[in-house]
Structures are given as C-alpha cells and as structure tokens.
C-alpha cells in the first residue's frame, strides 16, 4: 500500500464484498496493517498551539458569519484515493462546513466553525488517518506564481476563442475570393474579424511585446523581437487595410500564430511551476513548536519565538527547532534530511546540533546558538542562491539565430522600403509589408518551442520531469555526469543483506527473533527488520545508545547490536565469533548461552545503477561520484558500478567548487542528487536532476526530476535531448531556407499576399510535424 488513502480504498473494496478483485490480481502484496494511528497527549498539546490567535493570524481568515477558513499543506498525498479519504473524513467531522483537497498542489481548503471544533482537533484528525498537515502561508513569490498562472490561462483562452472566430470568418472570405462575394460583405467581415482580433493582439499577445521592448532596451535581440514585429506589423497592416478598404487582411494568421506560441509558453510555464512548491520546502524541515525551559519548567512555545540563548528540550523523535549546543544529555541525531546520510550520528554534551535534524534516542537539552537567517539551514539556501547567480547561462540556439535573423530582416525591409520609395512611392508601403509578412518568423519561432514541448511531454510520460526550458539543450551537450552516492546511486536506507547462522537453527528462526527485538524501535537499523514477520514477542526491552538492544523472549535474555555489546550477554564458555570478511555493517545476535547469528546490513546500490553507468559511458559521458561519505562503502559502490572518478568526504562547498573547477575546464556538467546538502551543487551545475524521493527544496531547485527514481531514464533523457537538438537544427534550417528563398521574391514584388500566407502556413506545418517525431521514444531513442 502506497498510502493511507489506498489502504482505506482497499478496506472499502473488501468491506463491500468485492475482494474477488484481489484473487484476479497478478501480483500479491502483503495485507495492510489497517489501524488508525493514535494521537498522543504530547502531539495534542503541540497541535493546540495552532489554536492560539497569534499563530492563527498568519493563515486563518475569519468570515463574517464567524466561520474560519484556512489553507493547509498536507504531506503524504500520493493519489486520488488520498483526496477521497481526506475529504470524506474531514467533511464527516462535526463543525466542518467544507473541506476540499487539491491533488495537484497537495493543499486543503477548510471552512469550519471554531465554536464547535478547534483547528487543533482537525489537524489531529488528519494525523489520525495517516497524513501530516501544516498551515500554508504563501510567500510573495508564490502569490506571484499563482497570478502568473492565472494570467497565462486567461491569455490562452482569449487567443484560442479569438482564433476560432477569426478563422470562421476567414474561411468565408477565402471562399468568397474564389466564388465571388459582394464587396459590402467583405468589408463587413473584415471589420468583424478586426473587432475579434484586437483583444487577441492587445491582451493575449502582450507578453511578446513587453519582452521585445525589454530586449531592445538591453540591446539583445531575442526571438520575441521578430515575433512582435510580425504580429504587430501584420495586425497594423490589416487594420490599415480594413479602414482604408484596400490591400489584404492577415487577422487569421496573426491570431493563429499568437495562439500557437502561447500554447508553447503555457506548457513551459506549467512544467516550471509543477515542482515550484517552494513554500513547503523549509516548512517541512523545521518544527512548529519547541519545548523551552523557563525557570526549570517545560513550556511549549511556537518555534519562531525562540531566541539565541534559550534552553530547549528535544525529546526522542522530535525535530531540532534551531541550531544549538548540547548542554545536557547525549543522543544520536538523524541528519539524513541535511546530509543524506542514513545512519544517525552520536552527539555528546558540548556538540553542535543543526536545526532540522531529528533526535533519535534520548532527550537532550540544547542551548540555542543560531536562529533564522544565521542558521545552517538558511546558509545552505543562501549558498544555493549564490550558485544560481554564478551558473553559466546555457545560450539558446534559437536566440542566437534570432538576433542575426532579426537584424537581417530589419535591414532588408528598410533597404527594400527605401528603394521602392525612390522607384514608386505608392507601392513602397505594401511591398515593404509583404517583405515583413513573408519573412514572418512563424516557422522559425515555432522551430524550437514545438520540439522542446514534444520532447518534454515524452520525457514526462517516461518518468523525467523537465522544469526549465534550457534543460534539453544543455543535456544534449553534457560531457560529465556527477552523481551523489547516498539516495541517488544507492537506495538511501539500510536493508538486510545477509544472515549467517552460528548454530544449527535456520537463519529464518534467528531473523524472527531479531525482528521481535527490533520491532518497537524507530532506529534506522531497526527499520531494516520491520518487514520481517515474527511470531515472538519481546519483553523488558532496553536500548543502549549506539550499541544495541536487549530483551527477553520466552524467558531467555537476547542481545542484538555491536559485536562486543551483544557478546557480553553470553556466558564465558564461548569464544567470540570472528567478524565475517565481507564489507558492510554487521550486527551480532546472542542469547545467554551462545552467539546465534550475524546480520549484514547495507545501503543497497540501485539495481539499475550499474547498467545506467555502462550506457552513459557508451554515450560518451564521463561519470563521477561526489559524496560527503568517507567510509569504505564509497569505494565498494564505485567499483561495483565502474565509476572511475570518485571524490569522497567533501562538504557542500567543496562539492560546488569541484563542479565549478570542471566547468572552468570547459565541461558541461549534469549533477544528479537528492539531499539538502546537494542543493548548492545542483544549482551550480549546468543541468541538475533531483531524484523523485528528494526533499522538496532539492526538487524545487532542480532543472529536472526523475519521478520514478529509475536511473535508466537518465539515458533516455540524454538520447532524446540529442535527437531534439538535431530536430531543432533541421527546423531552423528549413525555416531559414524558406525565408531566404521568399525574401528576394517578396522584395521584388513578385509574391501575392495569398501566396505569402500559404507559404507561411505550410512552412509552419512542416516544422510542427517534424517536431512531433519526438513525441515517441522510438527505437532509436529507447534504451535497449
């Protein structure tokens, strides 16, 4: 079961007697442990903080009738079943007026009556069915994104509806031109299409004009300039023709062109926004509350009210609310959110602890040393921003072509206009205009976006989400690909690899005993045993920090953990067993009489990783591994995968420096990573790809996301990006060739306007059809 939603759906299926479904299913999965989570007293008191007015004022709106409304971010939503479960469960609560959950951005809108039900109870209910809710406080950037999205949708709608109407009238006009039509009808229909085309130009095409103006001001000719000239010029000429009742109108071409270009931009924007849930990113890392010690009393306060010098208590399982130094107690801290390393690190009195990490074993008391902008977490974010500024700009082929093209067209138009003005002034305007229309860069400006849109869509269907426009181009030019180790090349969690029995019992028997001992521990090592079914029940469990666990099963004392610790429980008659020679983390299981078994745990290398590296080598890319880990596991992974360059034990800053060094030597780097510590280096590489399981912050800032976490998709993406590049080249060559051919003819006055329109449409169609070849991962593109 992927989520509580699916669990509930499965339960419903069984309850309504439809469980035959499971009989006919090809694969079987284990039955869900269908119990609702209970909410502890401590959690309730933490949630009760959200009932305070001072905290609610940030995200709760009170309506006139006394009802309150809030938007929450819900963690753990994976599919429509989750939405169903959440909506049903919340709407059933007494006092909830309306609850709707958005599957796309994982937000819930709640309207409730605070007299009947406090917000904390609602949050507790959400927690009880297996999700986590945080208040959603949009930052300024997100509100802007939201506005941008709405504006773009409106523009697309106006352009689409306008295009259809103008096209309808245009068909009548073309038909009339062939069969004969009364001139009063022609005039009327021209006016009608002008009325419809005007909002399309003034409203929908506005972004092109704005961008073109900005580019002209910065003296940088981009594709927006010829687009604006074509759209604006053809529109003005058509208006002129309509008003003076002469010449030709191009309203149909103008609106269609605008609509197609807007579609391309819209799709690009959507891809960019998809991962842009920036607001959740930091929120998920820092807790909302902290337990502060005031005059020896524990008081729960909102985490943002913490100040430097405050003493806070962090209980096991809680997240550290700010950077600080341990002043009492010792424990192990899970830093995986920041460093990606899965094993907790031991911290003693006096050690520094970083905000956002999780306390695993014992309660500790912390003196807060840094908060807010000075904290480690914020400094990583700052490093990220700096890296993004320094990032080498991937110059886009189309823009380079565009600048020459625009300059050429403008020069020609001016020359042609001037020459004709000398020869016959009355024809000069129309001929200059036909030059501008015939060289309308429709095909040229569609060449790149259509190819990119088609390729992006294909990759998305195959599990690679592209979020920035330049990615396909920089992917195709990449020379180096750099991987993070933990969580990227490996699975990122400990799994049980081997069991060696030391007596005559089966390994399964020992495994069951180990599972019984580890059952109630949340330590990452214990979690490796959680999947094992056990008939035994352990009692009197005791954990020793950093050593292991002790417990009683059927009256016998057992210990599991580090060899020395576990062996200490045995009676002296036995010699200590030798540690097996295979690399990995070994745990020993002993009982009072004898050592029983060895268990080997390891972070497993992703099954497809070796093959991916092989394919990448075949594609001519240099593969490197860059990791903060400095243990012997690094070399083991590198040899298993055949990676030649390995740099281990480096900090985020060093990682970034290494990438920048490579770039100075002329390399085009793809970085694949997942942790918060990878973010700066992800931002520094020309192309950054985050794993699907990466933290939100990493995903938001990456250029692409491997949704399925299947590394093989990387090779698909690189192959397709190379094909995309060649298709863009073909498209550009074709459209430039067409324009070069048509330009002299138009300049000499040989091209009738209808021929210009026909040629323009044909060349656009050729370009679009060529781009559509990218919409399938054909034989040539697919990894064998």
């Amino acid at each position, binding site marked *: 079961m992927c989520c509580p939603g699916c669990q509930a759906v499965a339960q419903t299926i069984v309850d309504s007697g439809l469980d035959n479904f499971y009989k006919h299913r090809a694969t079987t999965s284990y039955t869900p442990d269908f119990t609702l989570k209970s909410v502890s007293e401590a959690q309730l008191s933490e949630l009760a903080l959200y009932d305070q007015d001072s905290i609610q004022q940030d995200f709760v709106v009170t309506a006139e009738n006394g009802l309150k409304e809030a938007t929450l971010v819900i963690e753990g939503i994976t599919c429509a079943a989750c939405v169903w479960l959440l909506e049903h469960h919340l709407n059933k609560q007494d006092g909830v007026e309306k609850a709707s959950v958005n*599957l796309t951005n994982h937000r819930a809108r709640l309207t409730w009556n605070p007299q009947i039900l406090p917000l904390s109870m609602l949050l507790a209910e959400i927690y009880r069915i297996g999700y986590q809710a945080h208040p959603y406080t949009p930052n300024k950037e997100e509100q802007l994104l939201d506005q941008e999205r709405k504006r773009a949708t409106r523009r697309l709608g106006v352009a689409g509806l306008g295009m259809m109407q103008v096209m309808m009238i245009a068909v009548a006009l073309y038909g009339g031109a062939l069969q004969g039509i009364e001139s009063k009808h022609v005039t009327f229909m021209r006016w009608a299409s002008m009325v419809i085309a005007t909002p399309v130009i003034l409203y929908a095409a506005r972004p092109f004009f704005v961008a073109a103006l900005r580019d002209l001001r910065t003296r940088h000719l981009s594709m927006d300039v010829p687009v604006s000239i074509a759209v604006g010029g053809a529109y003005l000429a058509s208006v002129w023709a309509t008003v003076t009742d002469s010449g030709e109108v191009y309203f149909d071409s103008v609106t269609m062109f605008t609509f197609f270009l807007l579609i391309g931009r819209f799709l690009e924007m959507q891809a960019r926004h998809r991962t842009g849930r920036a607001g959740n990113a930091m929120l998920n890392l820092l807790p909302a509350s902290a337990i502060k010690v005031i005059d020896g009393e524990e008081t729960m306060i909102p985490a943002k009210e913490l100040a430097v010098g405050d003493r806070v208590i962090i209980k096991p399982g809680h997240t550290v609310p700010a950077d600080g130094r341990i002043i009492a107690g010792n424990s192990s801290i899970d830093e995986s959110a920041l460093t990606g390393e899965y094993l907790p690190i031991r911290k003693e009195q006096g050690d520094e602890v970083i905000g956002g990490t999780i306390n695993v074993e014992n309660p500790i008391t912390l003196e807060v040393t840094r908060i807010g902008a000075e904290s480690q977490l914020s400094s990583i974010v700052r490093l990220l921003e700096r890296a993004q500024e320094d990032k080498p700009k991937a110059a886009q082929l189309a823009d380079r072509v565009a600048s020459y093209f625009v300059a050429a067209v403008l020069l020609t138009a001016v020359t042609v206009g001037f020459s004709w003005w000398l020869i016959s002034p009355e024809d000069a305007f129309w001929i200059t205009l036909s030059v501008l229309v015939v060289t309308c860069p429709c095909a040229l400006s569609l060449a790149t976006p259509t190819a990119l849109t088609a390729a992006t869509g294909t990759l998305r269907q195959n599990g690679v989400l592209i979020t920035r426009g330049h990615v396909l181009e920089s992917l195709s030019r990449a020379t180096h690909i750099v991987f993070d180790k933990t969580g990227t090349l490996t699975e990122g969690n400990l799994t049980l690899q081997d069991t060696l029995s030391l007596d005559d019992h089966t390994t399964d028997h020992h495994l069951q005993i180990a599972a019984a001992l580890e059952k109630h521990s949340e330590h990452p090592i214990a979690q490796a045993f959680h999947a094992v079914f056990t008939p035994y029940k352990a009692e009197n469990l005791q954990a020793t920090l950093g050593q292991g666990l002790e417990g009683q099963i059927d009256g016998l004392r057992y210990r599991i953990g580090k060899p020395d610790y576990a062996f200490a429980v045995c009676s002296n008659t036995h010699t200590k067993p030798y540690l097996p020679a295979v690399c990995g983390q070994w745990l020993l299981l002993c009982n009072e009489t004898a050592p029983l078994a060895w268990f080997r745990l390891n972070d497993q290398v992703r099954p497809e990783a070796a093959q991916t590296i092989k394919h990448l080598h075949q594609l001519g890319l240099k593969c490197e591994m860059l990791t903060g880990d400095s243990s012997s596991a690094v070399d083991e992974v590198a040899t298993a995968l055949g990676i030649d360059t390995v740099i281990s034990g480096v900090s985020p800053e060093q990682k970034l420096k290494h990438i920048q060094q490579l770039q100075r030597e002329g390399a085009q780097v793809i970085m694949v990573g997942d942790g918060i510590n990878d973010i700066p280096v992800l931002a520094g590489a020309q192309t950054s790809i985050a794993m699907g399981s990466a933290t939100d912050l990493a995903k938001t800032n990456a250029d692409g996301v491997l949704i399925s976490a299947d590394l093989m998709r990387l090779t698909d993406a690189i192959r397709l990006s190379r094909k995309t590049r060649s298709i863009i080249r073909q498209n550009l060559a074709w459209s430039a060739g067409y324009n070069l051919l048509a330009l002299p003819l138009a300049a000499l006055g040989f091209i009738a306007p209808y021929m210009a329109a026909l040629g323009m449409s044909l060349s656009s169609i050729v370009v679009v059809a060529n781009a559509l070849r990218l919409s399938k991962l054909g034989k040539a593109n697919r990894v064998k």
Partner: protein
Amino acid sequence: MDIIFLLIPIAIIFVACAIWAFFYSVNSGQFEDLETPAHSILFEDDEHLIPEDAKKQDKDNQGQTPE
C-alpha cells in the same frame, strides 16, 4: 446573405460571453486542479441520490456476475 449583418454580431456577443465565463472560471480557481475532478466521478459518495429500486437492481446484477 444580408443575414450575416445580424448573425456575425450575435456571434461576437457569444464570444464575449464565453470569454467572460472563462475569466470567471480561471479567477475562481477552477483550472488550478485538473486532476481531482477527473477522479471525483469515481468516488461513490452519491449513494443517497440513487433511487432505492435502482440499488436493488444493481445488487441483483452483481449476484449474476460470473466468477
């Protein structure tokens, strides 16, 4: 064909209405989540809307479905 002097303005008014409706739906956030509504038809929360006799018939049919 003079009827077009009436019909085309009417068409333009229709388009204006369509654009107004589209703006309204965009501004009220109907285009923000295109996934949930597609699934919501499968959520069986319309039990109370189904007439009793139809429910009964439904059950009979279910009994006959071959294994």
